[in-house]
């Protein structure tokens, strides 16, 4: 298949998903959460799982970008801006997901006016607001110089870039140097913010003693490692596809593969530890949770999706000598890992809730809202699919419009603005 066909397919899928998702979006605003299947016993569902999945991707991508902008690692320099861009895109998806989940999204400002400093959720909201601001600013300063250069091109692109830089024409090396300084400062601020933000989301779950499946000190750490592994994996596949990535980022993709392999191994270690300790402890609620994950109606989410396709297959591909040097295979394996982490998130949120708090609670009062059986509704699935579509379109727009810049090899400057010069793998 030619690159052109693949590209059309990419846009086609993105648009189709967004169209499907917009139906769910409209339904959400017209009917509220009536057509969502979660209830009062399993109060969080697919949308919360998708939210923590996307913020994990975002925090992970951002932390990889900090390897470039804080720790000055040359190996990842060519994908620094892409990592930052991925962090922004996935954070937008996360916020869209959680906004639909909130009963009153238009009351979100209450968290600023009526703050509860003891609430992990309040901290999470403040921190992701700060994080959003930092990464948007950082991305702007990373791209500013290239945008100014590119704004000289004619037509739509030139106008678009001029808007993005507010008409600035400053190409001086001093400003470029100060940009880099600002980026470094922002990235340095961003690292602890991202760690607190995402570790804080782990804490949001971990502090809840009412849910033994989550309760414990490992959760914030597990969230951070999962974020790094999933974010790194997403970056590997994106940097292989984005703007002729396989040619430009060949070695970086391989390096990301190694990084992800290590992170996935640590993640696996932590999960095995949680599982074995849980089983050995024989605490009824923990056992019920583990049984739901491994032998419940959605056993395949764990065995097939999370463990098989999301862990063992990519691990083999990243380890075997025959495949680990092939950037296409490495990127593909990382793609599997990135998708597999959605199953990890689902298996955290839903089985952790789908257990009766008191014996007989799910049968005491007949209602689909008062049951421990939860399957996402069509509207929930479509909404999340729509978010994936938005993500695809945003990446597509980024690949089309983002100035290449920062390329070690020569010849990048003329490439800017010459449409059709990018070839997707």
């Amino acid at each position, binding site marked *: 298949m030619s690159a052109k066909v693949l590209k059309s397919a990419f846009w086609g899928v993105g648009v189709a998903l967004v169209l499907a998702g917009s139906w769910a979006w409209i339904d959400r605003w017209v009917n509220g959460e009536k057509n969502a299947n979660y*209830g009062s016993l399993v109060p969080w569902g697919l949308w919360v799982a998708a939210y923590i999945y996307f913020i994990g991707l975002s925090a992970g991508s951002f932390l990889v970008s900090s390897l470039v902008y804080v720790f000055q690692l040359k190996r990842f320099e060519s994908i620094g801006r892409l990592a930052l861009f991925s962090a922004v895109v996935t954070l937008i998806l996360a916020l869209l997901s959680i906004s639909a989940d909130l009963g009153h999204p238009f*009351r979100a400002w209450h968290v600023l006016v009526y703050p509860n400093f003891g609430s992990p959720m309040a901290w999470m909201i403040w921190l992701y607001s700060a994080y959003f601001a930092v990464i948007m600013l950082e991305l702007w300063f990373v791209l500013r110089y290239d945008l100014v250069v590119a704004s000289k091109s004619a037509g739509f692109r030139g106008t678009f870039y001029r808007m993005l830089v507010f008409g600035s024409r400053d190409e001086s090396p001093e400003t470029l140097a100060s940009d880099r300084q600002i980026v470094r400062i922002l990235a340095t601020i961003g690292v602890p913010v991202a760690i607190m933000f995402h570790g804080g989301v782990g804490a949001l779950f971990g502090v809840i003693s009412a849910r033994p499946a989550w309760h414990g000190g490992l959760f914030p750490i597990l969230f951070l490692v999962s974020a790094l592994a999933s974010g790194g994996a997403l970056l590997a596949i994106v940097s292989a596809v984005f703007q002729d990535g396989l040619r430009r980022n060949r070695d970086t993709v391989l390096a990301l593969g190694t990084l992800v392999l290590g992170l996935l191994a640590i993640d696996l270690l932590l999960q095995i530890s949680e599982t074995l300790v849980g089983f050995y402890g024989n605490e009824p609620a923990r056992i019920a949770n583990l049984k739901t994950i491994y032998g419940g109606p959605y056993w395949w989410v764990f065995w097939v999706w999370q463990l098989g396709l999301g862990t063992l297959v990519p691990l083999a591909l990243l380890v075997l000598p025959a495949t680990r040097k092939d950037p296409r295979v490495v990127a593909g394996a990382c793609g599997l890992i990135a998708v597999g982490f959605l199953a990890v998130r689902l298996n955290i949120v839903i089985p952790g809730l789908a257990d009766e708090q008191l014996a007989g*609670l799910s049968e005491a009062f007949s209602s689909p809202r008062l049951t421990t059986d939860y399957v996402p509704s069509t509207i929930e699935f479509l909404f999340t699919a729509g978010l994936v579509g938005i993500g695809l379109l945003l990446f597509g727009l980024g690949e089309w419009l983002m100035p290449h810049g920062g390329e070690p090899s020569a010849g990048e400057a003329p490439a800017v603005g010459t449409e059709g010069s990018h070839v997707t793998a």
Partner: protein
Amino acid sequence: MAKTSRRKLLKGAAASVSTLALAATPLSRAIPVQASEAIGPAPGVLARRGRNLSAALAERGAPSGGLLPATHAISVPLPTGSGTAVAAQQAAASAESSVVRMQAELKRAMEKPIAQRKWTMVIDQRKCVGCSACTVACIAENNLPPGIAYRPVLEEEIGEYPKVTRRFTPRPCMHCDEPPCVPVCPVGATYKRPDGVVVINYDRCIGCRYCIVACPYGARSFDFGEHYTDGTPGRQPYEESPALEYGKEWSRSSVEGITRKCHFCVHRLNAGMLPACVTTCIGEATYFGDLNDPESLVTELVTSGRAVRLKEELGTKPNVYYLV
């Protein structure tokens, strides 16, 4: 053992019959609503309430509601000397109904400053027959939509045939002294009042459901904005009538997309009335009162040695006790 419980059941049934007769009286008579001296604030709210079932139930509990003679009829001769005689049974066996006693104690407690009251509920699981009258009364009182029951009755089967029994656990909010739901709320919409009641500010709640997740008793519900008559030819007007919780009128739409929970009927307490689940319990198995009052019935029961609390190990310190 089996004999004992059968006797208790009979006793409960005897009490129920009289209570049911009592409950039927005001319904058939359509009592006029009186803003009696027992009813303090918000007479407007009460006047509106007079149109529905809860008015009848509420008025019945009020000692000055013109129904006192009927209440006296509750004195049923009860077998004595069951061996496990406790304060509650003595109270029930006396001429005075425990409801009347609790009513007087409520009035006494409401005269104190709010911080000196400690509202406490005691549920006698040996007396509870699992009729779910409390569940239904609560739904009627608070005009609850589908999928929300502040006080379901959990049923468990214990043992195997032929040695088998059932245990009923009515589950209101525990109104914990260390409520896990309160610190997690990002906007401070849920809080503990000085009298111990854990309440929700419906206008402030953003609907994140973190409190539902954090509650170890499943005592919080999300209002999905559903109606019982959805999917029928017409939505019925009673479903659009306001909820009167916290002494305010909450239109149906104003409580959609937020978390709701049992609040010990604080709107009724303010009006000098016991919670709806207490006055409707057919076997007088639910007790309510002020634990700071050493003379109160709940204090007697809590200190009887029979009282336990759910999930004590979590350190939540519930204010709902069960007599086992």
